[in-house]
């Protein structure tokens, strides 16, 4: 298990600093209602980011999640509209996400095409395919049971919260305490050594892409049922938010490091900043600059506290060179 929690500490301090400022300047931010709304708004990013953490730990990346997100939402809507029970439609949407994920995974793991290339292609292909199929029209006239999955507006967030917390804890625990979780780190840390240790690294990569796809499908459903119609252009830019959260949370795009807890912190920091600035009365026009600044400060703090020089002949470098 990785013992250094530097990035997590750094991000957690940034969150704490933000919370302190808010507690003084805008205590209304901490109302239960606002926190609940924030949680529901960041839920899709959180679920996808957990799957993305797995993919990034294996040293790969998936930037097609935004397109998968849009398609899964639309698919869930179209199915429920055609009379399929809403829970079945939701399950089908998750399955569809898993199928798209496993397609990416198969191309990456078994054909050896770089993941950035594969998923850039599927991102464009899926998005354009959806645009062609829907001509930009939204899915409307959904059955009443679709919104809130047949629950009420007050019940649903609790169900969603329970599902999310359970999934997050399961992945956080599983990555550390189940052999399959460790195989993911091994694959990303030193693929050659992993193969020599008898691990099927291709299967591991294929699997993490599939899991990411399924989680993206789930995120799309949980997000779609908060509304009574489904836009066909959902999730544009989702991949950037997700990847930003994951890397800010400490995962290295070179693979081998990254933990669910760090990702959760990354999601919290990035999701909390936007509304916080509104609460603090900052003009929307400066918001993006301030967000960029906060990311830079959060990671630069780590670099400044820990001077650049490390042991020159690091084993990590030599292991990577052999791979």
């Amino acid at each position: 298990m990785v013992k250094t929690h530097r990035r997590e500490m750094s991000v957690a301090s940034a969150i704490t600093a933000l919370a302190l400022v808010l507690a003084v300047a805008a205590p209304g931010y901490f109302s239960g209602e606002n926190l609940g709304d924030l949680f529901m708004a960041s839920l899709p990013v959180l679920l996808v980011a957990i799957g993305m953490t797995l993919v990034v730990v294996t040293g790969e990346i998936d930037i097609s999640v935004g397109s998968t997100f849009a398609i899964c939402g639309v698919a869930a809507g179209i199915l429920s509209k055609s009379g399929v029970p809403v829970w079945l439609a939701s399950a089908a949407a998750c399955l569809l996400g898993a199928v798209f994920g496993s397609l990416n995974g198969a191309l990456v793991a078994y054909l050896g095409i770089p993941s950035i290339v594969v998923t850039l292609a599927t991102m464009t292909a899926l998005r354009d395919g959806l645009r062609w199929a829907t001509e930009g029209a939204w899915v409307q006239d959904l059955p009443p049971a679709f919104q809130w999955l047949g629950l009420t507006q007050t019940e649903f967030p609790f169900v969603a919260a329970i599902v999310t917390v359970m999934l997050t804890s399961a992945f956080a625990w599983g990555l550390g305490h189940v052999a399959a979780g460790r195989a993911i780190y091994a694959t990303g840390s030193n693929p050659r050594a992993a193969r020599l240790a008898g691990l099927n690294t291709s299967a591991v990569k294929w699997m993490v892409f599939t899991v990411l796809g399924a989680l993206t499908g789930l995120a799309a459903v949980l997000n779609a049922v908060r509304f009574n119609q489904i836009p066909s252009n959902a999730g544009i830019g989702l991949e950037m938010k997700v990847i930003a959260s994951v890397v800010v949370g400490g995962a290295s795009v070179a693979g081998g490091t990254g933990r669910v807890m760090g990702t959760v912190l990354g999601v919290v920091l990035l999701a909390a900043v936007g509304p916080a600035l509104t609460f603090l009365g900052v003009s929307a026009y400066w918001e993006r600059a301030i967000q960029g600044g906060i990311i830079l400060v959060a990671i630069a703090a780590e670099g400044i506290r820990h001077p650049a020089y490390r042991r020159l002949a690091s084993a990590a470098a030599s292991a990577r060179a052999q791979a």
Partner: protein
Amino acid sequence: MSWRQRWFPNGEWVLLVVLAGEILFFSAVAPGFFTLGNFFEMTRFSVELGLLAVALTPVIVAGGIDLSVGSMMGLAAVSFGAGYHAWHLALPLAAACAVLVGCAGGALNALLIAKLELPALIVTLGTFSLFRGVAEGMTQGAVNYTGFPSSFLFLGQGYLGGVIPTQLPVFGLIVAAYVVLLHRSVIGRALYAIGFTAQGARYAAIPVARRIGLVYLLSGLVASIAAIIYIAHLGQARSDAGTGYELDAITAVVLGGTSVFGGRGTIWGTLLGLFALAVLQTGLHGARSVAEKELQVKNSQVAVLCGAILAGSLIVAGTNVWLLRAVGAGSRGSDGHPSPAAPRRTVIAVMPKAKGDPYFVSCRAGAEEAARELDVDLVWDGPTSLDAAKQNELVENWITRKVDAIAVAVENRAGISTVLRKARERGIHVLTWDADAEPDARDFFVNQATAEGIANALTGEASRLLGGKGEFAIITGALSAANQNEWIAFIKKRLEDTHVGLKLVTIRPSDDDRDKAFAETQTLLKVYPSVKLMMAISAPAVPGSAEAVRQAGRKDVSVIGLSLPNINKPYVHDGVVQTVVLWNTRDLGYLAVYASALVTGNKLAPGARALQAGRLGQIEVRNREIILGAPMLFNRSNIDRFDF
């Protein structure tokens, strides 16, 4: 060392073959493709992107990445505009100011990456937001600096000796400098060593941090030069200059054989990658229309040929997205409605701002209706998402194809005007619709509703619902969207002039995303409890905002906005949304094609005061503007009668 290893160490010769194949193929299928003029136009469009790609090559060779170059273009563009207009600097000083900003931004990247040894990807992801954000903050999203002297615009729009685009020599100079830097100089050799093994380079006494810092600094510098050329090319400096360019530039670099893991790559590889993409894109737009017609005659032949070429380029360009995007667009091109081949039929080319947008999809229905009624060929093509440069490219294409009339929904007023003027010189009738170009660049403007008319309708409704007094908030589209910013300006003016009781407390962006509009409205309702009305002025923002109000149970808050009827029907019937303001989009498309056909048939002269537009009847023409009518107000009583 064989000549092949020396010049094409990473298999770049494959790209050369592809490029030649592309040129041969498109010359065969697209008339007017293989001309010197077309070649130079293509290079003109590639210069800004090419500059970024060339600057990124050494960055990637040294094992790094710079995602912030596109944003830096925006920031440098705004600095230039502000320097010239707001601070009244002389042009060279304004340019110096932009370059200085570029260097400063590059230095920030360099400091964080080279000195503090933070991962380049995260750092430039941060500065990607930071630079764009500062640009938006400086301009409040709205300011659009135009009105640069023509001597300056010559840099981006003029010709040297009548044929060579002015910016081409500038580009050549910078490319030459980079070739020397990367391939001939001591520094370039160091960059390769660093890219292969940064630790090993330290042991060879290479000042690693300084070399890495230098490439990021230069990349900021070149991005600012690209920004200056971009301004001269499009005639305006906006905070959204260069949006998305970083990804396209990286694509060109990677396609050109540069390894993202560092150590491998050449400048000429990048140039080949760039031109392979540019030729494919231009060619596809030209070839598509031909293929459409020939599909009728020798259906299978053309399909097979197209397929073979595309498959071939696909295999070669395994690393390339942009290509896939173009292929995606190409395959969709055939869903146009080819008409039976007949001798010399009228061809009317109509361009929306973005093809997939529901708003323009509904316009298209009207355009097709008019084309059927008038028995003309309709070419409906446009960028897949808002992209001013792509619009220019398409117009160039249509000029090459010699269509009869062009009708453009303009994304960028100053930028497109030059090419529209060129179209008019070649005897093509030019109309604009939805948004206008410079008046001298078109015959007529089909005006759906004036910005002032929309602003007045929205403010009037707000005043009526709030009883003449109260607070409201605006949810806009993207902060830099030109239309919305124009409306906001008129709304603010109207508030001062007539509705003094109304107070606009804040403006929030939705980025044309329903879910973001939803979240923004949720926050607004809590931060400003006294706000009693949400005015959403982007189509997806109205239902998003309405859903937030409904879920919050705030029956005291009304929602109005500018949107499409269909997606708002549930909320209008629930009483959450009171009024949706819009013109009849189907009629707009209908009128654009109808007017184009009349102009082509010389039935509509510049001095006309009115025209007969089929089922729309008599339409007023005022000062070469064809007025569709006042904006419509959709509400519970009439909304069900409209389906778009």
